[in-house]
């Protein structure tokens, strides 16, 4: 058993977790970071490439950047948060350039162009900086539950070290959850480590979630592959199998046409609307986009190839752990949230900002959560490692009955996937399909809550299965509660936007899931 103490414990080693660890350490905290995989390759960022919501500090440019997404997001974002994120992102990108010496491209005048980051290079350098900050990194060490003190304040975390096959525990003054969103093991690029574990831990500690209805992101990928890069399909035309154009289909507007068609027949695609310059630019922007084509001998600019839509759930949706303070604190003392584990409604409202907003949010929220956690831990005055702690995990780790019968983690995952992956349930939403899906998920939860449990690496899988089940139930409860179409949440049975629902929706609970409207956001013309 690895038994450690630290001022700050960070769960998750994607960009948000890495920034949180660095900033907590810079604030003087001792820091331990644990990742389910490996800090440097884990998560949605490392294996991909992303634009960054990076805007020069010019008032007109900032105003345009903030205004551009407000309507798409259903007017649920917050101008103060957007402005803070633009400021913080600008500062962090300078650190990436100057401290991590990230090799940015340059314009004709030799000025760095800092509007994008390639995942492998970015996260390799973030790992170096985390290590140089004196942070202790535990790779292949998934967290399985939080620890709390007698008052209910979060006081650490426990998990399993996969390589050594032994448990670990870190008692800490404060915890940052940066475990990513939930993509339900859909095999979307880099997302299989994102099973919503942090949201389950947060809920068990009493934290709230927000925006869980904004959880139906689907990305375009060549069929049978993992490589999602929806932006590139803006240059594509989509076709029926007989070669006729699939009218109305598109990457940005018209993805639902692709989904509806895929329910009946294959959809073919060709990236035939890119100029020669743009083709070259694509190759240099995200080289792994072309691996599935090159390795199959397909020329995506000339040949027709079949596509699919892979669920990205709350990785590119905007729902997650509700943020209660400017330091990315949650409603639970000692618990902070950052990156895709947290709601991104504050800057995106109800529509995914795509990679660029998420990457800006990850580095900004990670910075604030790390600093906030360090401050909170310092306020404990050295009691961090001496508190008596209790473990908070329930579903998948401490079942309510212990007779051992019931579904295993594989059955739970399959049952959850059957309700959240199909396009006609999650993407093309209708109350008549959401309600029975939620009934099935509630029943699955009752079963797993009663009996699901496993040891070692299988115990980790059991917890991830429970987290996915919880996530799915929060999503559909919220999707049923929002009886309108707003942001990415589109209800076929409620096609209009309802001014009376111009508010965020807070969700919580485990055995009993609940919703309530958040205090309305300050009025913005809608």
């Amino acid at each position, binding site marked *: 058993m690895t038994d450690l103490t630290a001022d700050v414990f960070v769960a998750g080693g994607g960009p948000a977790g890495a920034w949180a660890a660095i900033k907590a350490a810079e604030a003087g905290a001792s820091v331990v970071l644990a990742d389910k995989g490996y800090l440097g390759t884990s998560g949605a960022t490392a294996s991909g490439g992303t634009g960054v919501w990076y805007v020069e500090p010019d008032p007109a440019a900032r105003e345009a950047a903030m205004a551009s997404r407000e309507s798409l997001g259903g007017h649920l974002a917050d101008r103060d948060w957007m402005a803070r994120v633009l400021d913080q992102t600008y500062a962090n990108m300078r650190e990436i350039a100057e401290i991590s010496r990230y090799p940015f491209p340059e314009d004709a005048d030799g000025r760095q162009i800092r509007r994008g980051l390639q995942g492998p290079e970015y996260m390799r350098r973030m790992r170096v900086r985390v290590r140089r900050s004196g942070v202790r990194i535990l790779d292949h060490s998934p967290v399985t539950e939080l620890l709390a003190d007698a008052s209910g304040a979060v006081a650490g975390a426990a998990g399993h070290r996969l390589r050594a096959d032994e448990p670990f525990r870190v008692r800490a003054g404060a915890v940052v959850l940066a475990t990513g969103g939930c993509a339900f093991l859909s095999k979307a690029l880099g997302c299989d480590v994102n099973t919503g574990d942090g949201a389950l831990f947060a809920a068990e500690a009493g934290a709230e979630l927000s925006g869980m209805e904004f959880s139906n992101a689907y990305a375009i990928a060549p069929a049978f592959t993992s490589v999602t890069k929806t932006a590139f399909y803006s*240059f594509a035309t989509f076709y029926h199998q007989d070669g006729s154009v699939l009218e109305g289909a598109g990457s940005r507007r018209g993805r639902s046409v692709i989904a509806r068609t895929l329910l009946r027949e294959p959809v073919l695609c060709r990236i035939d609307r890119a100029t020669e310059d743009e083709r070259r630019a694509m190759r240099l922007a995200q080289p*792994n986009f072309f691996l599935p084509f090159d390795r199959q001998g397909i020329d995506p600019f000339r040949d027709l190839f079949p596509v699919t839509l892979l669920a990205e759930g709350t990785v590119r949706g905007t729902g997650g752990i509700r943020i209660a303070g400017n330091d990315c604190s949650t409603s639970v003392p000692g618990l902070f949230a950052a990156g895709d584990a947290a709601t991104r409604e504050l800057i995106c409202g109800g529509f995914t900002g795509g990679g660029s907003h998420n990457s800006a949010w990850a580095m900004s929220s990670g910075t604030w959560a790390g600093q906030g956690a360090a401050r909170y831990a310092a306020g404990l005055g050295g009691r961090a490692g001496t508190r008596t702690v209790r473990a908070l995990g329930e579903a998948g780790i401490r079942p309510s009955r212990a007779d051992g019968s019931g579904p295993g983690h594989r059955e739970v995952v399959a049952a959850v996937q059957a309700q959240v992956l199909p396009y006609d349930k999650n993407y093309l939403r209708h109350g008549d399909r959401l309600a029975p899906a939620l009934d099935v998920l509630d029943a699955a939860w009752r079963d797993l809550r009663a009996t699901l449990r496993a040891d070692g690496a299988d115990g980790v899988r059991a917890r991830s299965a429970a987290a996915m089940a919880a996530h799915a139930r929060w999503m559909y409860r919220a999707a049923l509660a929002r009886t309108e179409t707003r942001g990415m949440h589109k209800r076929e049975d409620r096609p209009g936007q309802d001014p009376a629902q111009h508010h965020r929706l807070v969700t919580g609970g485990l055995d009993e899931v609940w919703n309530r409207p958040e205090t309305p956001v300050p009025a913005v013309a809608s």
Partner: protein
Amino acid sequence: MIEVVSAARCVTCDICIRVCPTDVFERGADGVPVIARQGDCQTCFMCEAHCPADALYVAPFADPVPPGSPHADEDVLGAALGEYRRLVGWGGGRTPGSRLDKNHLFTRRLRS
């Protein structure tokens, strides 16, 4: 999914075992990693980018290839092993791919 670990090229450095985000590899008796949990592979290509010996090949499919597939045949694949590392621009004498990034060119068109 990861399909090939070339014993001929592998330098038994354990890097792939260490960096795989879904913990797919185990060290074999001879030190060469074995694909112990292929079903957990998420086809993210990260191992191939990190392998300093160009000893790995990730087939571009989210499921295992059938027996006899050229995507599992080291001799057929040849220079495709480690190709992703070359594209990322890692390894001696190479320019980091990020330096050549032209993402801004087409994001400009997407915004317009």
